[in-house]
């Protein structure tokens, strides 16, 4: 397949930018160039955020114009976007009405979703034996119960054993597992960075 010559320009820009930032960490004299590159990255990301907002509205506007069953949801999104703009832009993002929208709409809606998620997770745990009966299911359910009981306090009942077991799980098993994950993430990040620097990985286009 014939590659686009424009890709080579993108590769050159990516390698030069990455190498400049990387060298800036080792040589303090190049720190200013590194800071300048970081400023550009921040500005570009902010512009991309605006483009994302425009693209979101455009997409849902098209859905609204089409004869689609879910067009009402797109219409709600566009109306909400317009109302938020009308409230926020004139008075500022931290004005009284802006905070009212945030405190009385965004927080309750998102919190309700997480509340429903809690109920479904409890139900799924109870149904887990019906779906798959294995030793791993027993270990999972047992760990969940012990961790929950390690937090619970009941008047007149001492649950120190559950609390100690929970602390042991958290400080030994969980930390050991997370450290392995962090090491893997670190190695993967280094490998990905090197692939981008040598042009083997082109997340910006092939």
């Amino acid at each position, binding site marked *: 397949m014939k590659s686009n010559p424009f890709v080579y320009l993108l590769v050159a820009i990516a390698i030069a930018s990455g190498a400049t930032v990387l060298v800036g960490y080792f040589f303090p004299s190049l720190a200013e160039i590194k800071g300048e590159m970081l400023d550009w990255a921040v500005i570009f*990301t902010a512009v991309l955020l605006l483009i994302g907002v425009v693209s979101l509205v455009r997409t849902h506007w098209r859905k609204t114009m089409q004869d689609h069953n879910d067009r009402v949801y797109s219409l709600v999104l566009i109306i909400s976007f317009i109302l938020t703009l009308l409230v926020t832009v004139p008075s500022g993002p931290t004005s009284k009405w802006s905070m009212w929208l*945030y405190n009385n709409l965004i*927080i309750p809606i998102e919190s309700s979703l997480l509340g429903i998620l809690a109920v479904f997770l409890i139900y799924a745990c109870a149904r887990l034996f019906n779906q798959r009966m294995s030793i791993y299911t027993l270990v999972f359910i047992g760990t969940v*119960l012990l961790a929950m009981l390690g937090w619970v306090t009941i008047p007149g009942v001492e649950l120190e054993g559950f609390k100690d077991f929970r602390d042991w799980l958290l400080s030994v098993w969980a930390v050991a597992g997370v*450290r392995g994950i962090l090491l893997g993430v670190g190695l993967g990040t280094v490998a990905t960075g090197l692939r981008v620097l040598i042009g083997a990985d082109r997340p910006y286009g092939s």
Partner: protein
Amino acid sequence: MEIVSCPFCGKENPPESETCQYCQARLIPLKINPASQPDSIGQPPEEESPAKSNKDQVPESQDGLQAAGEMNRSEAAPVSDASDWLSGFRNQINTQDLSSQPVAQDDGPRPEIRDIHPDIESGTMQNDSIRSLLFTDAGQKEEQPPENSVIGPQDVERTGDTAADDLAWLRELQSQYQQVESLSSAGSKKDEDWSAANELSQDSQKREDDVVPSWVDEIYAGPRDEKEAESDLGLSPAELPAWLDATRHSGTHQDIFSIPSDYGGQVEIAGPLAGLPGILPAEPEIALGRKAAAYPAQLQVTETNRVQAEIFDQVLQSEGQNQPIPDRGLVTSQKVMRMAFAIIIIFAILVPVFSLQTLERYPPIAPVAVLTASQIISSIGNESPVLVAVEYEPGFSGELDAALAAVLDHLMIQEAFLVFISSNPTGPLQAEHIVTVSNQVGSHQYVNTEGQIEYINLGFIPGGPAGLRNFAENPRLSNPSDISGEPAWQNPVMMTVDDINDFSLVIVASENQDKSRAWIEQAGTLLANTPLIYIVSAQSEPLIRPFFDATPRQVQGIVSGVIGSVQYGTTIGRQGIAQLYWPSFNSGLLAAAILIVIGGGANALLVLNAIKNGRKKGGN
């Protein structure tokens, strides 16, 4: 337009082409049809055969061989014509007494054989001329019988001059044609004509072969000379076993050059061998049509395989058919169970709200991470700048608001100067929200007005990890103004901050492990003496714990979820939001554990019962 593809090179050629214009391979395959051979032989010389048109394309050295081949390759001549000229040829022989009468010598110069050949090939010589020439030579040969049957190249000149060729071959030819005549009356006239003509052709070929160049004789003279040389040296020839001697080729070069009878009459018309007769065609296997092998259409399968195939076919057919969806009632067991779970949990949460006496018991001992965080904040002085990164989503406000409010309450008690920042788009609003909550719960009056600035909201940091790194290295350039657009760094407290290390404390509140790790990696590495405290949700605590347990610590304190907030409040002796949340949180947690135990146990019994019944059925 029809295009003919070359069977050798695969390139396309016009449909009227006989040979490939690229590789000169034959496009129209030769078909060996003995019935057509007599026609070729019987073609009158004056008719120009298609092969003659290609004569100019062949090298001169091949003319002699080509001539013999072209005579055989002549096409589209009717058998009757051949019979005519052959009969005339025969009558001519009969009318002359070849055995006794000497041939009258012409006064004019007589053409030699090699001079006549091109005329014969080109067809310019008429029948009468051929006859006169042939029988004149025959008369001369009659007078001087040949001494040797094989004429060497050195004898060719003499042959033309002395006419020493005997006429035995003509008599033999005459007898053969008489046989042909006798057999021509039968239904197999064509075949007999072909045989006789073929023999005539072979005889003619033999005569042609007699006139071989000198280099051919030199080749065959070589082994004889070596043999003679060996005999001169006294070496006796080796005696070979009979079976090995039988395998040796004892023929002459004529035998070597002999060709199979099937292809003897074929002349190559294309390629480097153009003009050579008797060339084995390269493509007979391709050109000759074959009847496709007939394979049985029915599969040879066993009865078991046939039954299984029918079952498989039924399964495939059933896949394409729409299966009716069974009507599901509005009330199913799962819906009932889900509703029951929700009602029980809501009830468990609401009961402590109306009766706080029942489960009012807080966790007694605070962990080390909470105690360390409390001690660090207790050491924060008045008007000390404290950076607070609000990195959690609004949905986690119920959990993290309680934890962060307890810490902010402590900071407000210490009268620290709070600087809020966030890499989350909703973070700045969340910061305003948590300040309001902390003011309400702790009876504080932290405001940001023109006359009184006790905290600053720097707003949003775009760019993800790169933005965090940029802010950590140069916060003034990264966020020069606050969320309202006012200059942020003209405040007397903020003027003392040039680097992230100038903050007295950095607090990160997040439920997202990626953002938590980004702050440690991008900003935590630049912190020299500034402590870093994390306010995280219960699900993120295990991911931050390794940084707290490290040596030296990359995170100096952790306050985790509602229970951490309760423990922190207990440590500083304050009743915050967490204390309000705790009874409902505790009872809801206990109800959830009970539901999991009861529901899980019931489902396990059902599964075990089903397995037991299934085994019984299988056993029966």
